[in-house]
C-alpha cells in the first residue's frame, strides 16, 4: 500500500502542495479531485519521483521510497498529454517498459484496451481516443505496483468519455490494480474510483465517497465545488 505523509512541494518560491497525507490500500482506486491549479498533477509527479518533495515522506508497504529514483519505483503514470514517443511505433511505445522480445505482452496489453493489430502503426496516425488507449496500455503493460492516471479522459469528447469511464474502472479492477486517478470532474471520479480525496490549493480538504462528501461537506467551498 501507498502512504504519503505530510508532503510539501515548493517550486521556485511557490508552495504547490502542503501537509498532504494520503493512503491507498492494495487494490483500491483513489480519485484526486480538485479545480485546475490545485496541485493534482504535482502530487502524482511527486509520488512518481519526477518532482522532489521539499518535505515529507512517501512509503510503499512501509518502506521509505522518498528518495528512490523514478525509474526504480515500479510505478506507472499515464500523463495528461499522453507523452507517447513520436519516434516509436505503437508497439514500441507499449513495449518500452517491458523486457526486450516481450511481443506477446505488447499484444496482450493492446488487447486490454481494444487496440489489437495497432502495434505497427505510428503514433501520429492515431486519433485522440486511440492515443489515450495506447497510453493506458503502455502504463499497464509492465504491471506496475501503483497505477497513476492524470486526467485520463481529459482531452476526449463527451460521448467517448462516458464509455471509457466504465472501461477504465473495469480494466483497473480486473488487474486488481492499486491506483490513483486525477480528474476535475466529480461524476467521472465517482464512477471510476472507490474513494475520493478533494484537493484545494495544495491541501487535501476532505476524503470519502462522493455521496459522503455531498451529504456532509467539510465547508462551503466543498459544497460549492461539488455543486
Amino acid at each position: 500500500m501507498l502512504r504519503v505523509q505530510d508532503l510539501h512541494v515548493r517550486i521556485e518560491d511557490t508552495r504547490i502542495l502542503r501537509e498532504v497525507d494520503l493512503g491507498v490500500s492494495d487494490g483500491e482506486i483513489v480519485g484526486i479531485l480538485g479545480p485546475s491549479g490545485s496541485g493534482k498533477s504535482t502530487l502524482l509527479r511527486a509520488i512518481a519521483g519526477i518532482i522532489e518533495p521539499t518535505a515529507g515522506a512517501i512509503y510503499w508497504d512501509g518502506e521509505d521510497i522518498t528518495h528512490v529514483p523514478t525509474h526504480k519505483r515500479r510505478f506507472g503514470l499515464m500523463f495528461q498529454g499522453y507523452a507517447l514517443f513520436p519516434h516509436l511505433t505503437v508497439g514500441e511505445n507499449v513495449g518500452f517498459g517491458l523486457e526486450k522480445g516481450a511481443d506477446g505482452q505488447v499484444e496482450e496489453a493492446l488487447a486490454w484496451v481494444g487496440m489489437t493489430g495497432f502495434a505497427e502503426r505510428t503514433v501520429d496516425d492515431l486519433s485522440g481516443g486511440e492515443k489515450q488507449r495506447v497510453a493506458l496500455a503502455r502504463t499497464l503493460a509492465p504491471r506496475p505496483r501503483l497505477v497513476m492516471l492524470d486526467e485520463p479522459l481529459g482531452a476526449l469528447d463527451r460521448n467517448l468519455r462516458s464509455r471509457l469511464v466504465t472501461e477504465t474502472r473495469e480494466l483497473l479492477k480486473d488487474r486488481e490494480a492499486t491506483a490513483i486517478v486525477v480528474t476535475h470532474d466529480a461524476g467521472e471520479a465517482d464512477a471510476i474510483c472507490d474513494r475520493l480525496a478533494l484537493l484545494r490549493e495544495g491541501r487535501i480538504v476532505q476524503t470519502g465517497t462522493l455521496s459522503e462528501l455531498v451529504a456532509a461537506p467539510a465547508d462551503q467551498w466543498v459544497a460549492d465545488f461539488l455543486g
Partner: protein
Amino acid sequence: MARRRRFRWGWLAVAAVPALFLGYFFLYPLTRILAVGLSELGVGASGVEDRLFRVGWFTFWQAVVSTALTFLVAAPMTWAVGRYEFKGRKLAMALVTVPFVLPTVVVGTAFVALGWRDSIGAILAAHVFFNVAVVVRTVGSQWRRLDPDLLHAAASLGASPRQVMRRITLPLLRPSLAAAASIVFLFTFTSFGVILILGGYQFATLEVEIYRQAIVLFDIPLAAVMALVQLIGVSTALYLYSRYQERHSTSWEVSSDASVPSPTGRSRLWVYAAVTGTLAALSLPLFALVRRSMGSYQNLFGADLVVGDPAAAIRNSLLTAAVAAVAALVVGIMAATFVSHRSGKLSRWFDTTLMLPLGTSAVAIGLGFIVALDWPIDLRASLLLVPMAHALIAIPFVVRITLPAMRSIDPDLRNAASVLGASPWRVWRRVDLPLVSKAALVATGFSLVISLGEFGATSFVARPNTATIPTLIFRLLSRPGESSFGMAMALSVILAALTAGIILWVDRFRAGDIGSF
C-alpha cells in the same frame, strides 16, 4: 523532516567534459595571452604604440567601410526577397548564400584569380562578396514578416512610398539591420585569410599583424598585446550589440510568409534585375577562379611540389575534419544536454561560456595554443592540436544547432520513459538521442565545413609537414610563378567542391531551419 536534495553525480560528469575541454583549450590559453600581453604593456617599448594604433585604426575603418559597402550592395536584393514572393526566390536565396559558406582562403584566391590583389579595393570587394548573404538573409526574412497592413495603413493616411519606407519599414526593420551590421562588422573586423592573401602585410589588420609578429618575427609578447587589443575590440562590439538588442527588443504584429505579394508590372522587372544583377556580380570571382584553375589539376597531383603534397593535404584535411567533427559533436552535445536539462544560473552561465569561442578570433585561439599548451605536457607538437582548434571553433555551432532540438523535446517524454523504468542513460539513448539525430547530422556537416575551411588558427598550429588544404593554398599563392598560381586555384576549386558537397548533404536533413544560423 527536511532532507538534503539528492545530488546527481551523473550531471557533474556530463558537464565536466565540456567544462574541461573549454577550460583547457580556450580559457587557459586566453588567460596566458592576457598575462603575457599585460606584462608587455607595462614595459612600453618605443614605437610599439605607434604601430599598434596604426594597425588598430586600419582594422576599424576597413571594417566600417566594408559593412557600409555590404549594405549598399545587398540593398536591392534584400528589397526584392523581403518585399515580394516570386518564382525562383528559394533558389536565389540558396545561391546568394554560396559565398558565405566558402572558406575565406577560397574567397581570397577567387579575387586573386580576378587579378585583384595588393589593394584596399580588393579587400573591401572580397568582404562585400563574403557578407552580402548575411544582410539579404537577416534583413530579408524580417521584412517578409512585417504586417503588410501597417504599410497599407500608412499609405491610406497619405504617406508616399518613400515616406512609408522611411517612417514605417526601416524603423521596424531596425533590429535585423542592427543584427546584420554587427555580424558583418565582427566578421570583417576579425577577417584574416582574405586580408593576408589580398593585402599582405602592407594592409595588415590586427589579425594579420598578430600572425606576422608571432609566426614571421617570433615576437610572441607583442603578438599577445595585439591579441589583447583585438579581444577588447570584439568584446566591446558584442557588448554594445547585446545592450542594443535588450533596449530595442520590441515586438510587433507579425504575419506569415503567405501574405507576401508577387511583384507586378514595373516592380516585376526591378525584382528580377536586382536578383540577377546581384547573383551575376557574385558569380564573377567564382567563374574567374574556375577558369584560371583549368589545366592545373594535372600539375597538382603530378609534380613534386616543394611546398607540400596536395594529395597529402587533402587527406590531412579530411582526417582533421573527421576528428574535429567527432570531438565537437561529443563535447557540444554533452554541453547542450546539460544546458537543456538544467535550469538556473549555472546552466545559463555555461551556455554563455560555450559561445565565447564564436566571439574570439581564430588567430587569438591559434596564438593561445602555441603560447599556453606546453603545460602540463607539451602538446604543441601534437598532431591533435589542429583538430582540437577546429573542434573548439565548431562547438558553439554544434550547441546552437542541437540545443533548440533538445529544448523542444517535451519533458514528459523523458518522465514517461523514466516512470517506465528507464535509467537516465537509457532515457538519453532511447528518447533524447533519436529525437535530436537530425539536428546532430546538420551539426556534423557544419563542423566538417568549418574544419575544412579553417585557416586562422590552423596557420598557427599546423606544422609544415601536416599542411591542410587552406594552408597549402596559401603557401602556393605566396610562391612566384604562373604554375603555383594555377595550382592554388585548382586546390581552391577542390576545397569549394568539398564544402558544397557537404552543404548539399546537410541540406537533406534540414526540415525548416534548424537552430540559429
